[in-house]
């Protein structure tokens, strides 16, 4: 018996999938031309599958800030925030995030995944309860598992189901942390946050909102869904990432609870990770300023989002429930999904293909995401590519 025996099932699935589409497992961005273009399989390709919502990953000022930080402070911190890894930039970014979100405190983490792992595994423990939306991201599930708390799910975006569960758990007389996302990463749908806040307050629960996909995308100032629907005061903890609208890598949590700072000392994912490199912190700080000052980026993003959503709807595809920068096409058949994905690639457009069980409801998803940096010409080419591959599907033509 080998230590690898348990992977045989995965190997068999991969082998089977490779028969349909060997390219899927071998995608390499051979050359990055810009925030929206790369060379894949030797062919110039439009990237319609990144999370570069505001297109800031190639902003010349952000790049310059990162280069300057590398020259002044080196390529890495080589240590934990708890030891030698807290540079002045980390502290400054935390202050700037707290100011941006109008919160008392902020903690910066090395990735968005670590931010969720660190916060969820630390905020609640044995004897306490996490109540999460069923469609929450894997980093949230993993953080919950590490917490040692009881984990309960409620049906995706179903406030009645959430309330039913809060009512059932009320007699337990313990802390309950409700966890939702601002914008869900697979279908781009929003949480019914105003109703969720009302229910969590009725039952005296805490609320953590992951605004990974909604920061920079929603709200008059880009603070996310809570700002957009005017319920920021009802959200206890906001978690977010630097790897989407801010074009880098990293994560954070902001809160008005003064005890947030204590999480640093209790959180193993925070303590036992090297801190973000100076270049990442420098580009993120500048990107955060641009997110606030350059509202035209958000406007352009939404023009592109609405364009693609409408086009795919007009073509008869089954898309997510509402327009958003994440435009997902639902497909029941894997072979059809592979054919469409390959067809788009052949037409010079890369989108993400997501397969069950990573998708809600067991469907395959062709998950496109648009950026403020996509030009009208690129958007037209993405729409043309979808039109061209449309005939490969069994989807009935829209009337």
């Amino acid at each position: 018996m080998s230590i690898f025996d348990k992977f045989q099932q995965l190997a068999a699935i991969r082998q089977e999938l490779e028969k349909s589409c060997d390219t899927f497992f071998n995608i390499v961005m051979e050359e990055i031309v810009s925030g929206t273009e790369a060379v894949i399989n030797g062919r110039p390709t439009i990237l319609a599958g990144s999370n570069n919502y505001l297109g800031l990953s190639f902003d010349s000022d952000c790049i310059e800030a990162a280069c300057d930080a590398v020259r002044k402070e080196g390529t890495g911190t080589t240590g934990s925030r708890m030891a030698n890894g807290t540079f002045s930039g980390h502290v400054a970014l935390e202050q700037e995030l707290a100011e941006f979100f109008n919160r008392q405190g902020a903690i910066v983490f090395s990735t968005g995944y670590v931010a969720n792992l660190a916060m969820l595994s630390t905020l609640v423990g044995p004897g306490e309860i996490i109540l999460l939306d069923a469609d929450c991201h894997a980093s949230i599930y993993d953080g919950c598992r590490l917490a040692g708390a009881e984990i309960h799910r409620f049906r995706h975006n179903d406030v009645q189901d959430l309330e039913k569960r809060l009512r059932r758990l009320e007699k337990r007389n313990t802390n309950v942390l409700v966890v939702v996302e601002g914008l869900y990463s697979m279908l781009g749908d929003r949480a019914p946050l105003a109703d969720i806040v009302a229910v969590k307050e009725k039952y005296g629960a805490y609320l953590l909102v992951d605004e990974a996909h909604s920061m920079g995308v929603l709200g008059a100032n880009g603070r996310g869904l809570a700002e957009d629907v005017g319920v920021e005061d009802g959200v206890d903890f906001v978690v977010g990432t630097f790897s989407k609208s801010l074009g880098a890598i990293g994560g954070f949590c902001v809160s008005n609870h003064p005890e947030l700072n204590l999480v640093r000392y209790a959180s193993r994912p925070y303590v036992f990770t090297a801190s973000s490199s100076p270049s990442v912190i420098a580009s993120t700080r500048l990107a955060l300023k641009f997110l606030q000052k350059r509202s035209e980026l958000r406007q352009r993003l939404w023009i592109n989002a609405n364009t693609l959503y409408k086009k795919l709807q007009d073509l008869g595809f089954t898309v997510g429930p509402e327009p958003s920068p994440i435009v997902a096409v639902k497909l029941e058949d894997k072979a059809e999904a592979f054919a469409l994905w390959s067809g788009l690639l052949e037409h010079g457009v890369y989108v993400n293909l997501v397969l069950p069980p990573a998708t809600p409801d067991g469907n395959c998803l062709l998950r496109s995401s648009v950026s403020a940096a996509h030009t009208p010409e690129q958007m037209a080419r993405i729409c043309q590519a979808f039109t061209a591959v449309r005939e490969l599907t069994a989807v009935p033509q829209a009337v």
Partner: protein
Amino acid sequence: MQDYKNILEELYKILLPFVPQGLEIEEETDLVADLGLDSLKVMKIVESVEDSLDISIPLNILPDVRTVKDFAVQIQKLIGDG
């Protein structure tokens, strides 16, 4: 208060649509090996049981559930713990 037998009957009812033709469901039926349930189906079944018995089932118990009997025992414990 639900007794073990009632819980088992309720589980049989909920699991029935997932039972392959020709298989008789019983206490020792293995949810994965015999019924071929994947994680998504397991979650749907958990939701149905929660609604039917008006309880909340923590995901933490699932690693200890292999058979229908295991599931029934865990549910009985949850109801007992109140």
